[in-house]
């Protein structure tokens, strides 16, 4: 009896050293050049300090030197996985400054493109999240299917990743004749693979064990940190800019906003954030089907493109749109010339990443990687 007591006493006096681990900037799972300074106690994470800026390309400074249309290719390079969605809030902001009414056909093509790109983005997000958990096969299934979407975009814009397709007042090119059919074929394939991945990965016992009940983000914390997109909806907040601050023609479509329900664990865990992306792909498919059915066949996509681009002096606007990752906003200030005075990009990933230190404390080191993966960041947008 005395002996056990003594051992316990000694154990409590033992000091365990904490280890500072530098995760990144070159690391397979930081999704780019992110550096996390992690303090671990054994395998438990006690502190996370993100160090960003390794991919800083002076986007905002560049914009001051460019004319309004020249900014679009730079905007593409923010969240390079969903470039169509990046261009949209920017061109919308400038269109609002110039008070341009965009033709009907352009609006429909923009919706279809943005939703296709949303699917492509979520495919990568779920795929890399699965890869972080160690499942390699769904990763390749998604990349195979993403090709169908990229082919469509390549045929329309000439580029596979950075499109420069949405122009101020219109589009760079009209769509090709078999466009509608190919879009419908692509979403058929997307649905097929999603059903397969649901079985193979999402409801896999090991995957649920790994991702449920970790990285819990309560709704009030998420709002305070201004999280948006699936990161916020995973916490059960039914908020989507397409519905709640509607823009373009989204009020014409019938779709749901999937939210996390805490189906397998606590509400707002990594699994919830991930499942929201899976359901959103299906909702995007629904929007695309409706848009393809309603889209007018005739119309000039370039008719509203202004020849002279000089927004009124002092005019300024903050335009936001629902990027696949969340709210992407552009604050555009004009000085009356053809070059903007100031463009501030409110990077979705930048804001969403700032919540990481809060939600990853106290979990294991392997969980940290999954929590980071579930936020779905792109470093191009974090560092700008």
């Amino acid at each position, binding site marked *: 009896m005395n002996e056990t007591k003594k051992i316990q006493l000694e154990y409590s006096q033992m000091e365990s050293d904490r280890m500072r681990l530098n995760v990144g900037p070159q690391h*397979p799972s930081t999704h780019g050049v992110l550096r996390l300074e992690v303090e671990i106690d054994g395998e438990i994470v006690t502190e996370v300090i993100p160090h960003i800026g390794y991919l800083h390309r002076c986007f905002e400074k560049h914009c001051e030197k460019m004319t309004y249309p020249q900014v679009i290719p730079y905007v593409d390079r923010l969240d390079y996985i969903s470039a169509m969605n990046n261009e949209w809030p920017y061109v919308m902001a400038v269109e609002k400054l110039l008070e341009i009414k965009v033709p009907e056909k352009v609006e429909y093509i923009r919706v279809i493109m943005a939703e296709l790109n949303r699917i492509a983005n979520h495919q990568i997000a779920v795929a890399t999240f699965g890869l972080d958990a160690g499942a390699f096969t769904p990763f*390749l299934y998604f990349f*195979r299917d993403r090709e169908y979407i990229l082919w469509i975009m390549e045929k329309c814009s000439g580029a596979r990743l950075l499109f420069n397709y949405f122009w101020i007042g219109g589009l760079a090119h009209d769509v090709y004749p078999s466009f509608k059919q190919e879009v419908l074929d692509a979403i058929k394939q997307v649905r097929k693979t999603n059903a397969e991945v649901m079985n193979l990965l999402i409801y896999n016992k090991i995957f649920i064990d790994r991702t449920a009940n970790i990285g819990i983000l309560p709704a009030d914390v998420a709002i305070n940190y201004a999280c948006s997109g699936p990161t916020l909806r995973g916490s059960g907040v039914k908020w989507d800019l397409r519905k709640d601050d509607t823009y373009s023609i989204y009020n014409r479509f019938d779709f749901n906003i999937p939210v996390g329900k805490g189906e397998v664990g606590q509400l707002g865990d990594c699994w919830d954030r991930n499942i929201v992306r899976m359901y959103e792909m299906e909702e995007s498919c629904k929007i695309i089907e409706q848009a393809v059915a309603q889209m007018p066949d005739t119309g000039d996509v370039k008719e509203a493109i202004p020849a002279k681009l000089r927004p009124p002096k002092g005019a300024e606007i903050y335009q936001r749109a629902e990027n696949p990752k969340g709210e992407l906003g552009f604050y555009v200030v004009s000085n009356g010339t053809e070059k903007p005075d100031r463009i501030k990009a409110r990077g979705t990933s930048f804001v969403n990443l700032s919540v990481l230190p809060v939600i990853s404390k106290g979990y294991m*080191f392997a969980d940290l990687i999954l929590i980071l993966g579930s936020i779905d960041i792109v470093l191009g947008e974090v560092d700008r």
Partner: protein
Amino acid sequence: MGETNFLIKLLGDNLITVLLISALPLGFLVVYALLAILGELKISAWMQERVGPMRTGWKGVLQPLAEVIKLIQKEDITPDAANKPLYNLAPYIVFTGAYAAFAVIPFSEFFVPSGINLGLFYIFAVGSIGAIGIVMGGWASNNKYTLLGAMRSVAQLISYEIPGAMAILSIAVLSSSLNMQEINKAQTGWFWNWFMFGGPGSYEKLWVIPFTLGLTLIYMIASLAETNRTPFDIPEGESELVAGYHTEYSGMKFAMFFFAEYANMFVVAAVLVTAFMGGWNSPFGSFLSGPLWGAFWFIGKSFFVIFVQIWLRWTLPRLRVDQLMYLGWKILLPVSFICFLFVSLFRMLN
């Protein structure tokens, strides 16, 4: 010893024969490793609806060879801050541990390199040498990732050796021998005589079949953990630990680790086949049986087990380290004890 080894019969018991016997598994191992790498590449490609490597040779069959050549000619980097003697020694120790186990694997009725009576015990003993090498390499690399990987690896190896050993011990009870060749001989006949299905016996063995099947499963799971394969590839989990204990290794030293992993895969498959799946016995009684057919059945069954390992790797995500420990200590260990108890009871009653 002599009667189980055709080379000794053929050439006599002298030094050259002994050297030949010890070199033969190495030759087999090289061929097998190339085949297994090709299998890994092609099976993963098939499961992921890709074609896999196609450019080297016919349908890419020479790809593993090309990879080996690449690894040999790569620059061998030793980190400045590494503890050089330990760093350089570690891959060889890991490989030695894996290769030493080949000494008692009965490839056929007439070929087992060393038919010692403590075969099973010996395999477990030398299997632990690898852990020393891993911890040596992980520590000597002087990198936090390798250190974490090595610690995880050793914790995993030690915890999963116990349920694995319990499963094998039950077979020792059933066959009343630790000699791998004797265990094989005890399972002669049709496939229902395998220890997986309770071993030879009539209807009264039926109630023990669930326990022996459970033991097979336990050994399969434990063997995955011992070879660091998915879903237990936590020591080298590339998503958090970059490459685990061999992060700093390159060139030939990395190839040794790689080689050792594939060698270990075969060893655990061979033990599984020997202990539970009849070893070199034909599944169909005396049909297609004989010394050469024995080698065929043994290697074929082992390859099937390796195929299952590859299959699982490309299907399942990875466990977390605490879940791994939970599974090992709280599920597999008690279950293996219960199975062991009932198998022993069965043995006592008969």
